[in-house]
């Protein structure tokens, strides 16, 4: 699939064209950037670093109906994800797309989650490169990622300044190219080459890093290590690090009933919450923030890579930048390495 050129002036028209689908782009709500379905191309806010809330909620909604029921009636009315229709996420960052490809492994593993997978199938990801790392705490390059990374994306838009280099990456990407054919031009010959040198330049701007080598194997041996207490002393037990993490995917189920009519819904849960894994008996195998922090790190850097050969962290740095008490995953990992 050959790269094309998309002039920045045409982005508005492109979005207009794409609004025949369920179109999701970064938007600005006050000063917060997050992903929302838009009705008007003007709502899209593409001049952004990275969003506060990652686009994972598009394929894995924070609250999602699974089925409806009527009390006293055994029939369940399942949610039909198909009805949501074809979806395009336009303008997400490579790290967040890569995160989806990582989470895909879980939802298509021993049990194939029909809701998630259907939604993924319906969704085309059009990503944009990071010319400038969005945050001082970016460290995607430590984890096989790149500010120009292609994992998980269907199309990568390389920001060339006055235009984008439109790189279709998958079959869905190719279809997107067809859809947008009238807005695309042939890319100039130097663009592809220039893009790869820009990628190196962008990688070089990322200042934080970790060598993940050996961490997955080492973590279990540090189960009882005092470092866990130390790194979690200041933890408040809130859900910022997990809810804003593009790879965290824990959920809980709730039945909501309204005068005999109900739905079963699943909603995000966080391993940092005190009622996470709280048993009905009152026992909690992870009774304090120490065990919960250990679980968060271990899940990302040990359990997940052991099962799926990939670390469940893309180095977006959100958990570091947004933690109210500056708990820093890189610092924790360094301590793990040093321990």
């Amino acid at each position, binding site marked *: 699939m050959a790269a094309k050129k998309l002039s920045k002036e045409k982005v508005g028209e492109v979005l207009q064209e794409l609004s025949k689908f369920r179109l999701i782009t970064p938007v600005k709500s006050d000063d917060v950037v997050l992903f929302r379905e838009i009705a008007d191309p003007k709502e899209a806010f593409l001049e952004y670093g990275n969003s506060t809330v990652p686009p994972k909620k598009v394929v894995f*909604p924070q*609250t*999602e*109906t699974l089925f409806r029921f009527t009390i006293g009636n055994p029939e369940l009315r399942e*949610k039909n994800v198909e009805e949501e229709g074809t979806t395009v996420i336009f303008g997400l960052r490579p790290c967040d797309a890569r995160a989806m490809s990582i989470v895909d492994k879980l939802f298509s593993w021993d049990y194939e989650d029909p809701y998630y997978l259907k939604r993924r199938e319906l969704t085309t990801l059009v990503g944009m490169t990071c010319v400038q790392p969005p945050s001082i705490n970016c460290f995607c390059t430590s984890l096989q990622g790149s500010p120009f990374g292609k994992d998980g994306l269907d199309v990568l838009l390389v920001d060339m300044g006055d235009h984008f280099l439109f790189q279709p990456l998958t079959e869905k990407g190719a279809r997107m190219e067809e859809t947008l054919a009238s807005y695309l031009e042939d890319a100039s010959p130097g663009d592809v080459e220039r893009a790869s040198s820009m990628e190196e330049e962008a990688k070089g701007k990322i200042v934080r890093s970790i060598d993940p080598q050996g961490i997955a194997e080492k973590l279990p041996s540090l189960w009882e290590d005092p470092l866990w207490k130390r790194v979690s002393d200041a933890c408040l037990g809130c859900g910022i690090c997990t809810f804003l993490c593009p790879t965290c995917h824990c959920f809980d189920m709730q039945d909501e009933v309204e005068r005999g009519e109900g*739905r079963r*819904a699943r909603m995000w849960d966080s391993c940092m919450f005190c009622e996470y894994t709280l048993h009905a008996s009152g026992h909690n195998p992870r009774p304090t923030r120490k065990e919960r922090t250990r679980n968060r790190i271990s899940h990302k850097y040990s359990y997940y890579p052991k099962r799926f050969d990939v670390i469940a962290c893309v180095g977006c740095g959100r958990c570091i930048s947004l933690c109210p008490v500056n708990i820093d995953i890189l610092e924790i990992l360094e301590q793990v390495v040093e321990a």
Partner: protein
Amino acid sequence: MAEATQTDFQPNIVAFLCNWCSYAGADLAGTSRTQYPSNVRVIRVMCSGRVNPMFVVNALQEGADGVLVSGCHPGDCHYMQGNYYARRRFKLMRNFLEYLGIEPERVRMSWVSASEGAKWKEVIEEVVEGVKAVGPMNKFQRRQLNW
């Protein structure tokens, strides 16, 4: 609000009445065969002091267009002080909801004694008129979201 809502709209009002004064007052209105709008549905509590201000939020969420809390006149509380506590709680909640954009007409409080069947009717009429004037609650009631 649109004109249509003012004429066709029949608001739904959840009322919390203390057993000793307001509930008795509402009973007296019945005994006296006083006719008043049927929009108000009553929950009986022993004292207005029992009514958690979050009940108001809950009722509005569930779809009520207005909420009324009614207790004994100051000094007449069967439990001496419950209505005073309620008065503080609801004043603050009402102001707070107004600050969020919830019309104060939706959050009402009244003193109705056991002998004030006639006042009960007036209160209901005023509450219903007030809610009609601001129209249906369409702000944060539970909707079928993410369906």
